[in-house]
């Protein structure tokens, strides 16, 4: 059973370049969830175009290609491959549009959760994140494709210096922006009963710590959609109170293995 909610705020910016999608499918009594967040970038309103185009194409993939594959009982590797093809196709299309309208691109993080098959397929590019939140920890399941994350990984930056580094907005991989031949990250995991999955853009998590996310979104403190919504709103307000200037978007999905109503 899924309980989910989301927040999206323009913040101090003129436009909201973030896009979000939560989709559930019911097929022969089983429920499957697909959710994605994108953080667009590009001058004028190109960033909005890139991110909203990506989520709408992702939604079309879920209700088209994915549905056909599920009906044909395709395995997770085939589904991953299909999702990868879809993302590379979007990349080419955005690049093509970018030639006409100016550079545009978007980050992309999505999760596909099929409880029946006990599979969580995460797809990721850029600095949007997927967290797995339990009562004891909030763990990022994705690795940021950013200059700072890369230098942290290579030991050039320390955690302390990373926080104050001026290159917070520099990412190393995205969909579009003229990039070709890039690889996107995928993880095939087992969904955990009773935990909360959080998809968020960098605006949601840059000025708050993982521990603050865990405290607010601990599954035991968020038994229903209303409390989940309140917790997301609280974290958004916390970001705003700390002068976050970026767009803020997050989707929280609580997964429990019990059967739902209906």
């Amino acid at each position, binding site marked *: 059973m899924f309980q*989910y909610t*989301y927040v*999206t705020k323009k913040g*101090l*910016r003129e*436009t909201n370049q*973030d*896009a*979000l*999608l*939560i*989709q559930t*499918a*019911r*097929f*022969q*009594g089983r429920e499957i969830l697909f959710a994605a967040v994108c*953080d667009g*970038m590009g001058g004028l*309103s*190109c960033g*909005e*175009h890139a991110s*909203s*185009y990506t989520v*709408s194409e992702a939604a079309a993939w879920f*209700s088209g290609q994915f*549905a056909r594959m*599920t*009906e044909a009982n395709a395995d997770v*590797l085939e589904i991953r491959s299909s999702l990868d093809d879809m993302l590379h196709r979007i*990349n*080419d299309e955005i690049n093509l549009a970018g030639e*006409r*309208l100016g550079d545009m691109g978007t980050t992309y993080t999505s999760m596909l959760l099929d409880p029946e098959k006990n599979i969580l397929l*995460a797809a990721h590019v850029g600095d949007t994140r997927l967290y797995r939140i339990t009562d004891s920890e909030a763990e990022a399941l994705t690795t940021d494709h950013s200059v700072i994350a*890369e230098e942290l990984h290579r030991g050039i930056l320390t955690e302390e210096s990373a926080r104050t580094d001026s290159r917070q*907005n*520099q*990412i*190393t*991989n995205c969909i579009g*922006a*003229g*990039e*070709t*031949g*890039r*690889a996107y*990250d*995928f*993880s*095939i995991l087992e969904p955990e009963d009773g935990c909360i999955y959080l998809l968020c853009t*960098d605006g949601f998590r840059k000025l708050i710590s993982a521990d603050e996310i865990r405290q607010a979104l601990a599954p035991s403190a968020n038994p229903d*959609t209303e409390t989940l919504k309140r917790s997301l709103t609280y974290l958004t307000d916390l970001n705003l109170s700390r002068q976050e*200037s*970026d767009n803020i978007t997050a989707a929280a999905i609580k997964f429990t293995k019990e059967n*739902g*109503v*209906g």
Partner: protein
Amino acid sequence: MLKPFRNLFAFKTVYSENKTYVNYKIGKKEEINYTQVQMLEKPAFREYFVPFQCTKTASVNKICFDISGLTALSEYLKTELTQEKYFEIIAGIQRIASFCKKSYLSTDNLVCSLKYMYYHNVQKKVLMAYVPVKNPHYVGDGIGACLIRMHKKARHIIITDGNYMQKYEHFLERYMPARGRRNRKKPPLTFSPDSLLHFFNENRMNAGGMDPDFAIEKMHPDTAGQPAESFPIMGQLSEPAPSAPPVQSAAPVTAAVQSFAEPEPAPKQTVSETVIRKRTRASLTDSRGNIFHITGPVFRIGRNVDNDLVVNEATVSGFHAEITCEDDAYFIRDLSTNGTYVNDDAHRITRAQLKDGDVVLFDDFRYTFRIEEKKDENGRAESANRTAPTYTVSQKRRSERPLAYLKRVSDGSEISIFRFPFECDEMPGLVLSSERSWNRQDIYAENRSCESLCFQSVEIAGGTKMKIFSGCVLVVNGERFRFQIEN
């Protein structure tokens, strides 16, 4: 045998623009009843049914319901409800069923699953999805069964009239299968909306000592002032309130962005925006598909470990050649003993400008020079008279970025990959190689002589290879590694 609607694929989609849709895929054999579609678009019908749009493609019929601003009854019932509110919902369902009967619409086409029945929080009314198909292969679960299920699920009702509630439970029992009924000899009745209307007319909540009009007013704010006898109003045909949601196109988000329109000029952003760190425009690609990006103003090639590209072959000089970038143009300069050649291995160059697609030879070792603007991204050398040279990476060259790494799941330690094909002593028998396909770089794991090699629980047999992906888990001789491409 008719199948229930719940066996169909139904997609619920939430967009960040506060738009939510439920999409039913109903199969190409189903014939959409366009007379009903037209009828359901009329304002009177929108009072009872969720707005929708039909789309027919080559393989499927799709019906997209716009449920923006609506709450699924399954969720609504989880909240604490007063008994009045609960019966307001039931009366709403009854009104829809009665309206169907009056309008010659089959109640079989109503989606009677609580997840796909809705409550309009502003207009305080129930809306249901009607699937307008002829000779359906699929049917709804039935309103009777739905009311029974709803009663089981609504656990947080604040009872204000226990007697009335008990009567309603007795009423429901008549429609339950034998197992749940007190009188098991009698078969369950077929539910009819009239029987529920009859129940409402026969019984009144909080009737004892209370003005019946008051109770009705509380239950149906929109019917306030109507005589008590008219409750619940069967097939009430009222004009939609000004706040009624307009019929949305099936997917405005998709429609809006499917073709990239000229963007509206937006004011200049005052805060720092996300930017992508561009890779260098130019690169050298060897015959195996390894790409070496040309970084810095001077890019050196040679056998010495201080070069940017170290070619560990005896016939290559310590400092063999260098590539420089001047005003967006790339030049190569020969520094070697055995020579550097461009496109023609008979003509040794001292200095030459490089163009996209030029083949550069360092002694006999071929590389293709690429500038990224070129549309054809196939970076492989057309032919190579010798296989690609071997590379070594000096530990001194700390500044070189790895292409990928393998991270041990057990302790988090990492093995960096600077070149493909990649082999290492810690994982004997495993070879990771890279092949360029039309729009991406594919990585393969090959089992040359591993005792066991698994990729995402799939065994890679000896002598075979399998395409892997960034983020996947490889189990090499029983040890788990996560493979990650560095961007």
